[in-house]
């Protein structure tokens, strides 16, 4: 970073909140994806005014700014692929206000999801999306990526809870969107435009979140299936039975086998396992729901069905699902965790297609995920130091994206486009939609300083990797 700009940044944030030291530059080069690139420097902002001053400077000097929360994203959104300034927001971590009466919480972007959860617990409330990285991911990151989680089918994703934002635009102007009301149709929904915009349009400096009362009872059941068709039919039947489970998770054959090889859980090696949780406020209510779910399992030739009767049994039933990520993370040196999503009637086809891709590309793909909202996580396992395996991984990813789109699905249900899927944007979005997105980007950020290189917004129209 040149001296003049370094000095200007230090004047804005203070010496202790500026760094260009090697160790910071290396750690800010990465997120949880396979991408990396070093920034020129990083700053920790503590106020919206500081963010505004940083953006004014960067806009004037045409320096990329990459907003960052906890850096747990899985598609390279926080990777400074064109260098520039990493704007770390994790020190803006104040819960500004909790108003149970108004059913909302106002937070700064650096608040960790779990810290809000802890703060809401005494009131019996929660912010429901429950991302798997919730102990570490920040709410700003959740908003920027429109994070989802295990409970998407019943409770939706981050976007369903963001009532309003304070956003700093690339030219430094500070704007408020939305309101503190449960409903508002006043003007364009600018709040939603920023949710999931991956830090390409503005920097979120305050978030108004709708919060929910926390269900106090749950019931849990599990079923195994010998055929993917039966599994698919069971999922569909459950989801239109009138019951919406708070979780409906699936583990595929490869995942079950991997867990068995690496733990002593001794899972049945079947085509698929489904795990369902229902929630509510009385045990009668949740048991009634889970019975319906079990009935649907049975009507679709479930091989084995178990319902948890004790806390320990609940834990046991969840053990396989909870261990999936960790088990798969240990098998090879590298993995890519995808999040393609399809309409629920297409889940069986998606699972079969993934198996076919795995065979065709000679690469191990283990699948699990959120059957209740059609969002699966095929985890492609490979050795990143073997160019041949890297090539096969890339080919398998491309096949997978094409498969999802062919099944009327989407490239990404909850991880975002970032760098990983940037070149596939045109596969999903038609030229008109791409053109509109590029115009929106240009309107907010004419000099392309905010998180450049992401979301395929700069690629030539129609380009597919």
């Amino acid at each position, binding site marked *: 970073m040149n001296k003049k700009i370094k000095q200007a940044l230090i004047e804005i944030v203070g010496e202790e909140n500026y760094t260009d030291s*090697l160790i910071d530059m*290396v750690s800010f080069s990465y997120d949880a994806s396979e991408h990396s690139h070093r920034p020129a420097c990083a700053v920790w902002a503590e106020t919206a005014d500081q963010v505004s001053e940083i953006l004014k400077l960067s806009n004037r000097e045409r320096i990329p700014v990459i907003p960052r929360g906890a850096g747990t994203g899985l598609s390279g959104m926080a990777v400074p692929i064109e260098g520039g300034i990493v704007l770390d927001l994790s020190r803006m971590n104040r819960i500004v206000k909790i108003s149970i009466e108004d059913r909302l919480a106002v937070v700064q972007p650096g608040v960790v999801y779990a810290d809000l959860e802890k703060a809401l617990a005494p009131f019996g409330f929660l912010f429901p999306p429950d991302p798997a990285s919730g102990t*570490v991911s920040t709410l700003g990151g959740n908003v920027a990526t429109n994070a989802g989680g295990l409970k998407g089918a019943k409770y939706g994703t981050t976007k369903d809870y963001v009532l309003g934002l304070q956003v700093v635009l690339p030219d430094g102007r500070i704007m408020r969107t939305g309101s503190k009301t449960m409903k508002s149709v006043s003007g364009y929904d600018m709040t939603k435009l920023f949710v999931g915009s991956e830090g390409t349009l503005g920097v979120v400096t305050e978030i108004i979140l709708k919060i929910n009362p926390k269900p106090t009872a749950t019931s849990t059941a599990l079923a195994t299936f010998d055929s993917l068709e039966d599994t698919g039919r069971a999922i569909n039947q459950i989801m239109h039975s009138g019951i919406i489970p708070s979780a409906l998770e699936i583990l595929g054959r490869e995942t079950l086998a991997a867990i068995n090889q690496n733990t002593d859980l001794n899972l049945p090696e079947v085509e698929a396992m489904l795990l369902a949780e229902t929630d509510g406020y009385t045990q009668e209510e949740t048991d009634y729901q889970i019975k319906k779910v079990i009935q649907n399992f049975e009507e679709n030739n479930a091989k084995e069905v178990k319902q948890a009767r004790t806390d320990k049994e609940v834990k046991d039933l969840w053990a396989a699902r909870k261990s999936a990520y960790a088990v798969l993370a240990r098998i090879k040196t590298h993995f890519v965790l995808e999040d393609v999503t399809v309409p629920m009637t297409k889940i069986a086809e998606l699972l079969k297609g993934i198996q076919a891709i795995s065979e065709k590309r000679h690469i191990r793909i283990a699948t699990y995920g959120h059957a209740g909202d059609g969002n699966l996580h095929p985890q492609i396992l490979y050795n990143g130091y073997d160019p041949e395996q890297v090539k096969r991984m890339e080919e398998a990813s491309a096949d997978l994206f094409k498969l999802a789109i062919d099944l009327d699905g989407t490239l990404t249900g909850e991880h975002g486009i970032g760098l990983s899927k940037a070149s596939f944007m045109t596969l999903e979005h038609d030229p008109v939609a791409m053109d509109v997105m590029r115009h929106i980007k240009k309107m907010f950020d004419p000099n392309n300083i905010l998180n450049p290189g992401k979301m395929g917004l700069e690629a030539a129209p129609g380009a597919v990797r």
Partner: protein
Amino acid sequence: MTSKYEFEKKYREQILKCSRCGFCQAVCPVYGATLRPALNARGKMLILKEVMDGKIDLNDELIETMFQCTTCANCFHNCPSGVEVPDIIKEVRKDMVKVGSCHPAFKGMNEVLDKHSNIYAEDEPEDFERERNKQAEYVYFIGCVGSYREDESTMATLDLLDRLKVNYTLIDEVCCSGVLEDVGYKIKDHLATENIDLILKTGAMTVITGCPYCSRTFNNKPQYASLKEKGIKIIHITQFLQDFDFNVKTDKRVTYHAPCDLGRHCGIYEEPRNTIRKIATNFVEMPDNRENALCCGAGGGVRGAYAKNSIAMARRRLEQAEEVGAEVVLTECNSCVHNLANAKLRKQKFKIYNTTEFINELMEEAE
């Protein structure tokens, strides 16, 4: 491919298994105090990956992160990929010492132990008003922090052992020097030999340590293997005390801080609680306890090298004690007591003790 560094030979696969998920960030005490991702386990593993890829070298620029880890192992316990971060860090520090890039505090500590018998270079040991090196059933091994910084607590511990009529002796102990293995150096053979000879001369078949780290060193390090070969058992005082009845009670609200060296590193979680429950009717856990206990910030040489951050880590732990309304914070490690006591704010009214000291105080009051 030939590896330039020892750490790579031993831990290459481990380091590559870090999937960069960042879950360690949630539990790293250094990150918690600084909110600086370069200092947590993921940051460290990424830097080491770049070293292995030949992009950077081990050099002075890496000291601030590689030597700023309390080796509390909370990251390892929460790592989906099972990366053994503390072991990797200890090996990297040795490599860094070899290339001449070491934090001056640790270089100094190594030099001190060449010339002196303890890490503080104190030449006049506290005699604790007791005869040393006598024949006895047990040796009580105090450790450097207990001898030179928390001597009041040690005196109380010894009084308690007397009250319980334990047949023990002190020895002219020298630093076990185990800490050197954590900060890039090696245990001093001459110090180990001196301790072993002194222990053997007493005829004791059990060594009770006041310091969990000394206990780990005696139990696990090859330099002290001859103790075990001679059938000598080494236990921490918390393991020893669990069989006693004290016949005293307090109704004060008591909480327990598990030292990393006793908890995550040795799996000793219940023994101290069993003892505390005997004496405290109003026992309460802090939100992060047992294998999730927050580190006090003193370990891995961080207290000496990065005092400000070390105190900040201790403050985070004490905030939890405050949150649960504790009047008494008990722990089982002089380093923890020392660091927590230094970090305590005036508005925080609780007292911090080793369990032994607290029990002794209760017994004294009862007499």
